[in-house]
């Protein structure tokens, strides 16, 4: 029982991270039917944004109040990246065949990874370490350090932070989508962009908002990842992005609740598979196999995902 509870906690932690990133895939897809494969890199840049903020302003300190400032730094870095990416790379391709933005996304993804790898230590006016190796992520009192035990289950403080972030973001997101002017406009655009335009909605602006919203959550996930792993590198966006995309599809692409549920389910399944699949196919080496096997099974029996894709059928 204890191992089960333990793996459940591990799974929910991992799943919260996936969920935070998955929302970005799903929101953008819901609005423009575009899979932004560079979203993983937006997450990675969030982590680097937090790290840079720390190195510039707080080097050597560990107090908790630094964390919100780091999160703000992360959000600024990610949102700026996503918004520029939309403006420069995706907007000119609006109306182009779907393959074009998809390939562009892969290009941006490679560009951003290499950019961070090659130039992070060369940013003028700073003396950041080279991103060619792993860079230690700052330790922050209260959210890193010794784990505590509750009822036989070991819980990392960073895990609590991650799960807490997901809960808070999900609540804010729900509120934003369902209770604000901008949220209503987003729903309208996702259901019928042409009609939304004829209601006076600035569709281009809503698309930017969707990118920015996803980027902000990815940035928070980036901070959480840094705190959990204690170090970051330029490649973290690739695997995390792939898993989060899987989570988004699993939950039903375009469906925000689906992204959250998909993320959590994926995390938990991975953790349980690591523990309970016996013999040669068990252990953490195989967890990705089980994650993608789950995706395939779900898509075979429920192609629209667990909670149902939300894409408007347009004639």
């Amino acid at each position, binding site marked *: 029982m204890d191992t089960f509870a333990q793996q459940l906690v591990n799974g929910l932690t991992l799943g919260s991270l996936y969920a935070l990133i998955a929302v970005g895939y799903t929101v953008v897809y819901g609005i423009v039917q575009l899979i932004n494969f560079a979203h993983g890199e937006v997450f990675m840049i969030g982590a680097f944004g937090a790290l840079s903020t720390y190195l510039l302003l707080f080097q050597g300190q560990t107090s908790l109040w630094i964390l919100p400032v780091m999160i703000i730094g992360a959000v600024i870095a990610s949102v700026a990246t996503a918004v520029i990416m939309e403006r420069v790379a995706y907007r000119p391709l609006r109306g182009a065949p779907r393959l074009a933005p998809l390939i562009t996304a892969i290009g941006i993804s490679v560009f951003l990874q290499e950019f961070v790898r090659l130039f992070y230590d060369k940013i003028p006016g700073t003396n950041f370490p080279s991103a060619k190796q792993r860079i230690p992520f700052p330790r922050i009192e209260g959210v890193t350090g010794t784990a505590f035990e509750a009822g036989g289950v070991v819980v990392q403080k960073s895990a609590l932070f991650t799960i807490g972030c997901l809960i808070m973001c999900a609540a804010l997101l729900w509120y934003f989508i369902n209770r604000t002017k*901008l949220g*209503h406009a987003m729903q309208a655009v996702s259901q019928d962009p042409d009609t939304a335009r004829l209601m006076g909605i600035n*569709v281009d602006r809503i698309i930017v908002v969707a990118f920015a919203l996803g980027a902000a959550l990815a940035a928070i996930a980036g901070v959480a990842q840094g705190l959990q792993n204690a170090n970051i590198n330029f490649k973290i966006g690739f695997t995390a992005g792939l898993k989060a995309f899987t989570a988004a599809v699993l939950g039903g692409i375009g469906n925000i609740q689906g992204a959250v549920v998909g993320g959590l389910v994926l995390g938990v399944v991975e953790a349980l598979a690591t523990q309970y699949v016996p013999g040669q196919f068990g252990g953490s080496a195989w967890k990705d196999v089980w994650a993608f096997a789950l995706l395939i099974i779900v898509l075979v029996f429920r192609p629209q995902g667990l909670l149902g894709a939300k894409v408007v059928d347009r004639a």
Partner: protein
Amino acid sequence: MSTAATAPQRTAPAIGAPVVEARGVVMRFGGLVAVNNVDLTVHEGEIVGLIGPNGAGKTTFFNCLTGMYKPTEGQVTLSGETLPPKPRRVVTAGMARTFQNIRLFSNMTSLENVMVGRYCRTSAGPLTSILRGPKYKREEAATRERAQELLDFVGLGDKAEHLSRNLPYGDQRRLEIARALATDPKVILLDEPTAGMNPQETRQASDLIFRIRDMGIAVVVIEHDMRFIFNLCDRVLCLVRGETLIEGSPAEVQSDPRVIEAYIGGGTDDEEEQA
């Protein structure tokens, strides 16, 4: 512009300045000329009917008026100003419409649909809307209130919280009208507002359109139901194969043999399109 046309009808308020003026509008799709050199002037306080057999180009003409299509030739002005190039600017300039095939935001409630229509008249930006500044709160409350008023106006006051996709067909049409009215238009374009309605609902729709006109909004309405059109409109334009066949008072149009011919016999050229 005689209003003493047919059957009992409310007297129209004095006809005012032109709101919409379309001059020589041509819309080509490849080789097909869907709208050919059509002129139309709509004045304040006027209800103008647009009739014609299937495929005559009525909806296409509406699309040209609302900036959804850019006419191949000709020009459209709204209150004397050239139509802005972007559809959303056309809305803020004062032109609203409904659709032949209903296009509501189906996963939103009636009230939310109307509120979305209203947003182009509110000014709170993205940041204040997230941070809920006092201005945003005031505006949001006003938007909600106005949306509810409009639902009451079209007779859907008690269905504010229903998802729009669950509404009966007739209600969906009225909801589209409420959503269009929420944008505070000077002129509203209705594309077959009574399609699929029963006679009683059609009468209510007539009444609703008169009330809209009485609010000082010019109305252009496409319909196939001739009784409805001739009873409602101050002026009727009949399109056939993209061209103006006749424009005049309901009495004039009604009695013109070519109109009847276009609907009954003359439309044979369009038969593939009707099928």
